[in-house]
C-alpha cells in the first residue's frame, strides 16, 4: 500500500503542473482593452490607481514565463495574491468560503446517494419490469432537468402557494448548527437530486453485472433469502465501483454549487467567483479557479486511495 500511495502522489505532480499552466494561460491572456475597461468601469477603485499601477498589480508588465514563475513560486509559499477590490489576501477569503461549498457538496453527495442507491438496486433486481422502466425514465429525466430550474421552482412555488421562502441570511454552522442545516438542506436537496441520476444508472449497471456472477447463483442455490443475497452478497460488491463515482462527480458537485449558491445566496466559492467576475477582480478569479481544480484532483486522489484499500486488485496493477 505504501508504494501505491507514493506512486499516486508522484503522478499528481505533472497533473498539478499542467493545471497551473491551464489556469495561468486562461486568465493571463488578458488583452489590453480589458484594462481600459476596468479603468472605465471605475469599479476597482480605479480613481485611486493609474493604468501603470493596475498593469503592475496584475503583473502584466513582465514577460509571460517570468510572470508564470513568479506566480507559481508565490503559490508554493501560500500566496494567491491580493484582491484588487478588497486588498485582502485571496487565500484567506478562499479559506473562509471553502467550508460553505464543502458542506453543500457533502450534503448533496449524501442526499444523492440516498436517492440513487435504493432505486438503482431495485431497478436491477426487477430488470425490465414496469418498476425498472419507471426508475430508468425518472433517472434520464433528472439528467435533463437543469439544477438552476429546479432551484428556481423551489424558490418560486412554495412562496406563491404557502408564502414560504428560504432564509437568505447565511448562518454559519459554528454559530447555530440547527439553523445552518435547515438552511442548507434545500440547496443540497436540489443539487443532490440532480446528481443522483448518474449514480442511479451506474448502480443499476453494476448490480446487473454482479447479479449474473456464479457466487450469487450459489447463494440463491443455498436457499438464502432475497434480503441476504442482495444486501450481503450483491450490493457489497456492486458498490465498490460506485465509490469512484464520488471522484467523477466532484467537478459536477463544485460546478453545480456555483449555480446553487447563486440561487440560494450561499457565500461559498461559487458566489465568490461570480462576484469576482462582475468586479473583474482577476486575482480572485485566478485563485478560485486554481483552488477548485486542485480540490477536485485531491478528492480524486483520495477516492483512488480508498478504492485501493477496498479492492486489493487495484494496488497491484
Amino acid at each position: 500500500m505504501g508504494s501505491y500511495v507514493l506512486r499516486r502522489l508522484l503522478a499528481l505532480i505533472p497533473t498539478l503542473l499542467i493545471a497551473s499552466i491551464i489556469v495561468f494561460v486562461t486568465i493571463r491572456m488578458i488583452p489590453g482593452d480589458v484594462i481600459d475597461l476596468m479603468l472605465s468601469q471605475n469599479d476597482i477603485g480605479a480613481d485611486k490607481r493609474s493604468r501603470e499601477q493596475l498593469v503592475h498589480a496584475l503583473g502584466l508588465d513582465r514577460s509571460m514565463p517570468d510572470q508564470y514563475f513568479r506566480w507559481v513560486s508565490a503559490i508554493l509559499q501560500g500566496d494567491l495574491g491580493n484582491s484588487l477590490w478588497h486588498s485582502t489576501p485571496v487565500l484567506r477569503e478562499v479559506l473562509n468560503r471553502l467550508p460553505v461549498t464543502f458542506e453543500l457538496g457533502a450534503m448533496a453527495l449524501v442526499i444523492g446517494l440516498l436517492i440513487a442507491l435504493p432505486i438503482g438496486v431495485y431497478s436491477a433486481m426487477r430488470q425490465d419490469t414496469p418498476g425498472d422502466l419507471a426508475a430508468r425514465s425518472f433517472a434520464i429525466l433528472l439528467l435533463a432537468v437543469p439544477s438552476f430550474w429546479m432551484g428556481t421552482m423551489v424558490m418560486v412555488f412554495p412562496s406563491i402557494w404557502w408564502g414560504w421562502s428560504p432564509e437568505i441570511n447565511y448562518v454559519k454552522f459554528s454559530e447555530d448548527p440547527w439553523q445552518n442545516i435547515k438552511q442548507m438542506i434545500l440547496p443540497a436537496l436540489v443539487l443532490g437530486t440532480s446528481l443522483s441520476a448518474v449514480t442511479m444508472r451506474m448502480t443499476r449497471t453494476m448490480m446487473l453485472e454482479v447479479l449474473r456472477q456464479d457466487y450469487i447463483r450459489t447463494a440463491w442455490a443455498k436457499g438464502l433469502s432475497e434480503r441476504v443475497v442482495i444486501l450481503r452478497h450483491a450490493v457489497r460488491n456492486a458498490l465498490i465501483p460506485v465509490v469512484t463515482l464520488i471522484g467523477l462527480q466532484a467537478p459536477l458537485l463544485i460546478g453545480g454549487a456555483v449555480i446553487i449558491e447563486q440561487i440560494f445566496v450561499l457565500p461559498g466559492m461559487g458566489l465568490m467567483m461570480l462576484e469576482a467576475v462582475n468586479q473583474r477582480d482577476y486575482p480572485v478569479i485566478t485563485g478560485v479557479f486554481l483552488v477548485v481544480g486542485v480540490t477536485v484532483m485531491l478528492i480524486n486522489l483520495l477516492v483512488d486511495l480508498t478504492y485501493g484499500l477496498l479492492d486489493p486488485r487495484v494496488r497491484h496493477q
Partner: protein
Amino acid sequence: MSSSPLPDTVVLPSARSPTRQFFSRLIHEKPVGAAAALVFLLFVFCGVFANFLAPYGFNEINMLERLKAPSWKHLFGTDNLGRDMLSRCLYGAQLSVIIGLSAAALATTISVLIGLLSGYLGGKIDMVVQRIVDAYMSFPELVILIAVVSVVGPGMLQIIGILSLVLGIGGSRIIRSAVITARENMYVHAAQSIGASTPRVLWRHLLPNIMPPIIVLFTTRVGAAILIESGLSFLGLGVPPPAPTWGGLLSGSGRTYMFQGPWLALAPGLCLTAVVYATNVFGDALRDLLDPRMRGSK
C-alpha cells in the same frame, strides 16, 4: 424447405439502403428513441423557422399586456414588459439550436482529432496528451467557462468557441478508447504493412470504423452544450440580453416577477428540459443501435 426445388430466380434480401434500414430499426426496436428524435427535429424546426412561427417579436414591448397569464392570445403568457413568452421561447430555441449544434459539431471534431492522434500514435505523445486531458477534466466545465468569459467577455461566438473546446477535450477520451480497440484490427495492420501513410490509415481505415461512437458523442454533446450554455446565461454570463436565451429568461428581470407570474418560470424550463431529455433519449437509442459494446454503460 429442403424438399422444394430450387427456384429459377433467386430473390436477394431486399437491398434497402443502410439509412432506411437504420430508420426502420429505430422505429421498430426503439420507439421511444424515435419519438425523442421527432421532438428533437421539432425543436430544430422551431429554431430554424422561429422568425415565421413566432406570433410576436422577441423584444416587442406592450405595456398594456404586461404579466398576463397564459391565454389563447399569449399561449405562454407575457412577461413584465408585456413581451410574449411563446415568441421569446421560440427565439430562445433558435439561439439554442445555433449554439447546441455548432458547439457539438466543433466539440466532436476536436474530440476526434485528439482521440485519433492520441489513440493511434500511442507512446509518449499519448501520455502527454492524456495528462493534459486529465488536468482539464479536473476543472468543472462551468468554472472554466466563467473564468474564460471573465477575460473575453460574454457573447455567442466566444461561448461556442470555449464550449466546444471544453466539451471536445473531455469527449476525446471516448474516441481514444474506440481508436485503441479499432487499431488492433487486422485491416489496420494490413494497411500499415502495405505501407499506407499514417494520415491514410487514420482517414480511410480508422475513422469510418469509429463512426458509431462519434455519432453518439455528437448527439449527447448537443444536449450538454445547450444545458451548459443555459446555465451560463442563467448566471448572466451567456449571450447578453435582449437575446432571449432559455437560461437568461429564467434569470434577470424575469426572476423578480416570477412570484407574480409563475408561468415565467415554467415555460423556458420546460422547453429546456424537453429538448435535453429528447437528445439524451435519442442518444441512448442511437448508442444501443449503433454500438452494442457501449450498451448499458453511462
